[in-house]
């Protein structure tokens, strides 16, 4: 990474850490000012994070979507932005700020352990499908991760004696909506990837590890949606479902860096 990107990214990391600590202190000690400061630090961190991504984009000449570092950089930003959008619509979800900040920090930490060389776009990525495929991939990933966090917040909230049923209901609905939105984005991601693959490799499906795990994750969330919306699972069961289902998607997006069969390899 270059100096500008590095400075912006480390400033963002510092703000995420501050957001995490302040929001956590606010939640545990019912310190309103600390909680508000933690919530306010998150959008600032995301703004710096975005600028770091733009700096990298300018330096490499392409969107940061190619290797493990760039995917961590972009994916974690989507998680934060989707959470901000949710918190704006449903203020009850703001209590999840420490968990979201922690998730973003973990993802960035994973990326920062990887090589961050500035390299041009490889031949397979030179396609109009890249934008569609990757944007929807990160929308799906971000939605699923935030749905799991909100599910966890629901579980934490309802175990308290003074739990507010209305607030709990909104968290439950928010988690369900995020799963549904993520599933739609996931569908577009898989479909666009398949169509792209046919033009690139002459076949739309090859059962490579990423494809296989994308399908597994999609099926997991398909079952999740049917349990919630067809069989009427709500409350604790649905929240546990949202938390448990995220495993598949984390394996798809991050476990894949541990195998050698690269999804986009050509040469």
């Amino acid at each position: 990474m270059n100096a500008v990107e590095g400075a912006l990214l480390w400033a963002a990391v510092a703000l995420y850490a501050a957001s995490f600590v302040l929001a956590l202190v606010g939640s545990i000690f019912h310190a309103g000012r600390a909680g508000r400061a933690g919530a306010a630090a998150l959008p600032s961190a995301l703004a710096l994070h975005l600028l770091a991504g733009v700096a990298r984009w300018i330096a490499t000449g392409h969107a940061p979507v190619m290797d493990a570092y760039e995917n961590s950089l972009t994916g974690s930003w989507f998680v934060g932005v989707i959470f901000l959008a949710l918190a704006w619509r449903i203020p009850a979800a703001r209590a999840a700020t420490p968990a979201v900040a922690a998730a973003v920090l973990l993802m960035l930490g994973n990326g920062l352990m990887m090589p961050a060389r500035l390299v041009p776009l490889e031949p397979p990525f030179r396609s109009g499908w890249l934008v569609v495929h990757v944007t929807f991939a990160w929308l799906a990933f971000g939605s699923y991760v935030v749905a799991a966090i909100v599910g966890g917040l629901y579980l934490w909230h309802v175990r308290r004696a003074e739990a507010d049923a209305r607030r709990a209901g909104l968290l439950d609905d928010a988690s369900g909506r995020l799963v549904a939105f993520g599933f739609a984005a996931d569908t577009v991601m898989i479909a666009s990837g398949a169509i792209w693959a046919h033009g690139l490799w002459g076949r739309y499906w090859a059962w490579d590890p990423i494809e296989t795990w994308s399908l597994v994750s999609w099926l997991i969330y398909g079952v999740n949606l049917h349990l919630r919306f067809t069989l009427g699972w709500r409350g604790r069961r649905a929240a546990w479902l949202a938390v448990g289902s995220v495993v598949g998607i984390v394996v798809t997006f991050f476990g894949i860096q541990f195998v050698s069969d690269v999804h986009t390899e050509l040469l």
Partner: protein
Amino acid sequence: MAALAIVLGLGSTGRAPAWLVPRTAASSVWFLALTAYLCAALVASIVLRVRTWARLRRLGHVSSERFRVERTLVMAGAGATAEARLREAVAAQGYAPRGAAAGILRASRGDLGFAGSIAFHAGLLLVLGGVAVSSLTRLGGELLLAEGHPAALEAASFVTLDGAGRLPAPDGTRVGIRDFIAEYSESGTPVDFAAVMTFERPGAPPRERLVRVNQGATFAGLQFTLQRYGFAPALEAVDERGRTRLDAVGLLSLLPPGREDSLPLEGGGTLRVSLYPDHARGGGRSVSRSLRPARPVLHFAWVEPGGRVAAEGEVAEGASVTVGGRTVRFERLAYFAGVVVARDRGLWLLIAGSLFGALGLGLRLAYPDQSLRAEWEPCAEGTRVRLTASTRFFPAMYEQTVERLVAALREDATPA
């Protein structure tokens, strides 16, 4: 983490039992049976949804929502005025009236959501249909084409081929490449490669198409896609008795530069070759400064049967070198390209199914089934209205929606 890597690597690393490898499992009988069962379940699901929806419509119910929200409010004015205002407010929220009765208004929204649900499941059926058509009719294989050496479009020319019987009958058509170019970044990474593909069919004018990564060509209903490339030096090897043991174009690996490949010699033995496309000497040995063929030099080792290295040396493009009586001529350097040839009639079903599915999910998400029943009766303050709103999904959020409806009526109403 190792366990994770093994699980993730199914299908690629060979560390899992064959029946667990996704590519193998997907073509097994039980997987096909599972797919057939899924198709049957999807058809049943669609039929059941449509029948339930039609039955409820016939009975006058708007839908079978699971959660209810009830509110009572008093509107100023007589019944007719209140009804008109109520209808206006309900319509503004996107509800369509469903049947009329004295003192009762039924309305619902979300028909598009229902249509979306059906479209999504129908889309899945189309996708599965596309997969079935692909597995029955797909043709896919790879041709390795060196510049200036076209190949016949027939099964024997392919290095890999699935569905050989689906290849068009040989009619003398030849395919080739010329004017191959590869572009590299400043750091030497390949960033693009392209070539002109030629198609020559006896009795027809030749056709040419530019092909590059992600941009294939179509000929005779087949898709031709550039997949990989490497160097193709024209080589001649003559032994100490003057016998030509090799006169061919070698297909050599591109990466890393200097990687050793073996070419078989007539009568046994091999010629081991390493190509340095942009040759230089570094640390007493040959290296390549880049992948650009600026100064190609070939390092060779002549290995006789039994493994004895009979001659070893380096030869530049356009030159020949004799070592120990054995001569190696490196006539010229060209490129070769791996071209994937495919025809998949299931693709269009897959695309259509994907479009249906994505559109259907979008509609389902944007327009959830919701219904409303308003009953009113005169009271001392004006008209008492009891709203019963119901939904299948997201009850807490829907409660907020109903409250917005009540707020819209609030100008004329006071909550009771």
